[in-house]
């Protein structure tokens, strides 16, 4: 368990050094500030891990107005905006049980520094953008760079619905030579064809059963136009995965099947 935490700590040190950040590592709880994640794990989760000697790693990205104040001081005095990241929410009751380590990172000069830090956290902790505080995503400019990650859930749902409608093939228009009644009949059969087309290949066996059952009945229009099975665009799925998380994709696929 210790090894895993050290790997994260080491990796973070390497990342900060290679990225050219000004940073300071202090043992102690994180300063008060703006939470980078929407919700962190509750403190009780950390208790057992702390007993095993697992250190709690926090990152405080500090944006100072006056660069003369040390990073830690600026955060404590409220003279800087501190964006705080931690897997576990810090609570006073953890003070005597846990070993917190806070990395104070200076991000005053460049917004890009904060953006890179967020990307690093998202990557190493496998977090989707929905887990992050949306105001911070806006601050670092991710909303402008990739507007989809800043859309709210219902906006994503609307977008996916619109894309799905685009992908669904339109029913073919009835030929003009038909009378109105014939056209009505053919449109009904087309509609049924669409419904069956929406089902996936896995439902093929069920279809054959239906066909067998229908074989006994004489129907005037036995030929159905071939409509390819609708598949979700991988780009849409990727968008859903990024914006709503893995579970959303699974649900969507299950619903689609």
């Amino acid at each position, binding site marked *: 368990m210790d090894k895993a935490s050290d790997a994260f700590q080491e990796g973070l040190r390497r990342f900060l050094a290679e990225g050219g950040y000004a940073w300071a590592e202090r043992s102690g709880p994180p300063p008060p500030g703006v939470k980078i994640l929407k919700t962190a794990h509750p403190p009780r989760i950390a208790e057992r891990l702390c007993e095993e000697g697992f250190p709690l790693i926090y990152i405080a990205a500090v*944006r100072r*107005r006056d660069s003369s104040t040390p990073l830690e001081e600026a955060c404590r005095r409220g003279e800087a905006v501190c964006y705080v990241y931690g897997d576990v929410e810090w609570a006073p009751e953890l003070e005597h049980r846990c070993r917190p380590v806070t990395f104070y990172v200076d991000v005053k000069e460049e917004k890009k520094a904060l953006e890179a830090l967020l990307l690093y956290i998202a990557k190493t902790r496998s977090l989707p953008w929905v887990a992050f505080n*949306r*105001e911070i995503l806006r*601050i670092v*400019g991710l909303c402008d760079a990739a507007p989809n990650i*800043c859309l709210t859930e219902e906006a994503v749902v609307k977008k996916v619905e619109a894309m799905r409608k685009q992908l669904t093939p339109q029913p073919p228009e009835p030929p003009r030579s038909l009378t109105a009644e014939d056209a009505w009949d053919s449109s009904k059969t087309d509609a049924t064809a669409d419904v069956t087309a929406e089902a996936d290949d896995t439902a093929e066996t069920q279809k054959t059963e239906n066909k067998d059952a229908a074989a006994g009945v004489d129907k005037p229009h036995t030929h159905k136009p071939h409509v390819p099975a609708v598949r979700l665009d991988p780009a849409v799925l990727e968008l859903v995965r990024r914006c709503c998380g893995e579970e959303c994709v699974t649900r969507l696929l299950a619903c689609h099947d």
Partner: protein
Amino acid sequence: MQELFYADARYLRLCNRRLMMCRPDVDPSILIHQDPQAWEELLGWSCIEAFLEGAKFVGVDNLDALVEYSVSSPSAMRLVLAGTKFSGQHRQEWEDYLRGKLEMGARMKFPKVEAARRDDLWIQISPAYMLLPFDETKRRWQRVAYTLLKYVPDIPTHYKPREFISALLPPELRALSARGYVWAASIKSRDRYNDALAEWLYWLDHARLPHIDVKMDKFEPRTPIDSFVLSRRRFVGKIGAPTLPTNQGQHG
């Protein structure tokens, strides 16, 4: 000797800039008011420079871009402006805002006319409340503006809320302003007037807030009954204020 004098002057100028306080003549709701002229006149350049100092971080370097950024992401402005010092009669409001406290109610008290009663409408929260992140204030929105949340369950306070809300609000709700903002504000919902609703409709139409437009003499009436707002610029309305004759015959 002269060089020294110039060096001193530059130093003093720098000191002045650091000591320069923002003294706004308006409440924080101006941050969702898309009118750079109003920012110049009501905030003044001392505030704008202080705001730009913080906004440099997000790649904003002029007033127009600042106004655009602020209106498109109201709830992120609290982080952009953090550390700014305020003074003057609105100091407390701005400091409270940076601490995450903001008044919920309508900023504009419209004059009242006889209007319909709609108990199903419940939007008693001003658009200015979008300056605080929706995730932090969701409970209040649910309690005080559930009609709005019925159509927009997740107010995107962080990114282009106006575009998004405009697209999702049903036309029948937007059409309430067809008889005028004054009429919309006079609709009663459970014995309360709908000033906040009128404020929303005005903001969605113009991206500006009515009380600031009144200050700037830029209020845009929708119908003749709205002109009453302009004729009584210094109107401080109260519930129970003298009621105007009905406009039903004229606009009904």
